[in-house]
C-alpha cells in the first residue's frame, strides 16, 4: 500500500490534513516514517510514543523525539489541548482500552486523527461469512493466533461510536490498496481515516 514516497495512502492523507507548523503527538508512531515526513514537509513540532524496542532505535535514527511507553498507560503528563493534533493511526485497534486512549487523545489535542482497518469489507465478509474463516486481507494481514489487533471494527461501527460519544467527525477518508474510495466505503474500503474533535 505504499507509493513512491514510501508512505501508504492513509499516511499521505494524514500529511495533507496536518497544518504547517502544528504541534503533533503520534501515538504508536512505529518506526517514525509518518512523523519524519510531517517534520520534513509540514515543519511540525512533533513527538511520538512507541512501545517496540527496535522501533524506538529507528525513530531516534530519524532524529525524532520519541518516548518508549505504552499508550494504554494514558497521557496524564500532557496538559489539556497541549497539541494541535494527536495521531492514532493503525494503533486504535491495537490498544487494550481504545475508549480511554481516544478520550485522552481528545483531551490533549484540539483534533485527533484516527485510522484503522475496516473489518466489514467484502473480502472479510466473504472469508468469514461464506468460507467460515477468520479474514486475512492486505489491511488485516495477521493470522488469528499471531496478531497485534485486539479490536475489530467497521467504518459504520466507528461512525456510530463517535455519534454515541458526542465525538464530531470533521472529515473522513477511505482507501483501498491503490486509491481513495468514495462510494459504499463500509464494503469497499480497507482503511478509514477520520479527523475528529470533541463534539
Amino acid at each position, binding site marked *: 500500500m505504499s507509493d513512491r514516497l514510501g508512505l501508504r495512502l492513509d499516511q499521505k492523507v494524514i500529511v495533507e490534513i496536518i497544518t504547517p507548523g502544528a504541534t503533533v503527538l503520534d501515538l504508536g508512531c512505529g518506526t517514525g516514517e509518518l512523523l519524519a515526513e510531517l517534520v520534513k514537509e509540514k515543519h511540525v513540532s512533533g*513527538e511520538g510514543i512507541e512501545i517496540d*524496542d527496535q522501533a*524506538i*532505535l529507528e525513530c*531516534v*535514527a530519524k*532524529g*525524532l*523525539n*520519541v*518516548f*518508549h*511507553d505504552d499508550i494504554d498507560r494514558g497521557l496524564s*503528563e*500532557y*496538559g489539556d489541548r497541549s497539541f494541535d493534533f494527536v495521531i492514532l493511526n493503525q494503533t486504535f485497534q491495537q490498544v487494550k482500552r481504545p475508549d480511554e486512549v481516544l478520550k485522552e487523545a481528545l483531551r490533549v489535542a484540539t483534533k485527533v486523527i484516527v485510522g484503522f482497518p475496516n473489518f466489514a469489507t467484502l473480502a472479510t465478509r466473504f472469508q468469514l461469512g461464506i468460507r467460515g474463516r477468520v479474514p486475512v486481507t492486505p489491511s488485516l494481514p495477521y493470522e488469528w493466533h499471531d496478531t497485534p489487533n485486539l479490536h475489530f471494527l467497521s467504518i459504520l461501527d466507528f461512525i456510530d461510536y463517535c455519534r454515541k460519544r458526542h465525538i464530531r467527525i470533521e472529515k473522513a477518508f477511505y482507501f483501498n490498496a491503490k486509491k481513495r474510495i468514495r462510494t459504499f466505503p463500509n464494503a469497499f474500503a480497507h482503511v478509514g481515516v477520520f479527523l475528529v474533535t470533541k463534539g
Partner: protein
Amino acid sequence: MMTARGGGGLGIVETKYQTFAQDNGFATVGGKTLSPVTLAYETYGELNADRSNAVLVLHALTGDAHAAGFHKGDKGPGWWDNMIGPGKAFDTDKYFIICSNVLGGCRGSTGPSSINPATGKPYALDFPLVTVGDMVNAQRHLVDYLRIERLLSVAGGSMGGMQALQWVVSYPERVRSVIPIATTATHSPQQIAFNEVGRQAIMADPNWNDGNYYGRELPAKGLSVARMIGHITYMSDLSMSEKFGRRFRNGHSGFSFDPDFEVEGYLQYRGDNFIKRFDPNSYLYITKAIDYFDLANGKGLLQEVLRGVEARFLVIAFKSDWLYPAHQSQETAKACKRAGVKAIYAELNSTWGHDAFLIEVEEQAHLITHFLKNVSGGI
C-alpha cells in the same frame, strides 16, 4: 591529549590537571570556601574551529577522569573505552570529549585526602560536605578554562547522569543537550539506604579513626565491604546467575566461612582491591553528595525546574537496572514533557542490571550516535 593511536582505539592518553580558585576561593553550596581547587580531567579528539563540538562526559561513583584509552603501563583501558574513541558513540573523529573528575574525589582532584594548605595535612573530615551542584560548579571552571562557551552535550551514567542533569539546570545556556543514563533526579530511600550501609561499613572499621587514617593503617576492610555491597547492587539476579551460578572456586571440601563460592571470591577480590585506588573518606563524601542530590531542589515539581530549558534530552534507562530503576528515568522524561522540553526516552533491554551502561553498549551507542549527529546538525 591523545598521542599515538593503535588498533582503532585512542592509544595512550594522559590525565591533566586544572587548578583554580587560588586567590578568590571556591564557594561551596554549603557556604564553605576551598582554595585552591584542582580538577583532574582527560580529553580525547580535537576541538573544532568554532569550539562547538565539545562533549563533557561525567563518571559514576567510583569512576575517574580516565574514561578511555590507555595509561602507560596499564593493562586495561578507561572505564568507557567501548563508548569513546574513533568511530565510537562519542566519536573522537568528530567531537572533543572531556571527562572530568569530581570535587571531593581522590583521583587527582581536591578531596578529603588532599593536603589542606592551612594545616599542611590531609583535610580528612575537615573537608566541607560537597553536593552534586558543587561538583558541577567546579567543572564549570574547567569548561571556562578550556574556553568552551556552549557544550554540545553533557553525558553520564549513574552519578554521571546526575551531574549531567545538574549541569543543564545550573547552566542551561552552556548546554545544548543532555544524556542522562541509568540515573535519577533524586535518590529514593532505598538508594540512600544502600549508600548508608556502605558508609557505616567504612566507619565501623577499627582503623577508621574518625577519618584520620592517612599515613596509618587504612580502613581497608570497611571500604572492601562497602564495595562488595556496591557490586551486588550494580548487577542483576540474572547476570549474577550467569556469571557465577552456584559454582565453587576450588571444588567443595567441607563447610567453612572462607569464600567458597565463586561469587564470594569475586566480591572479596573486588572489595580488597578497591583500597588501592579509592580513598574511604572520598567514598563517604561522594555517596553523601548523591544522597543529597535533588534536581527539583526541594521545590517539589521537577517540571518547574526544567521549564524554559532549551537543551534536548536523551534519557536512557535499562530494564534490568533495579538500583536505578527505569521509573526514575521515566519521571525525568515525564517532567520534560510537562515542561515542554524536547526529549527522547528509551528503555533498553539488558540483563546486566545497573552496570549495563558500561557493558551492554550497542543500542546505547546507536542512540547516542544519532542523537549527537542530530543535535550538532550533522557536523
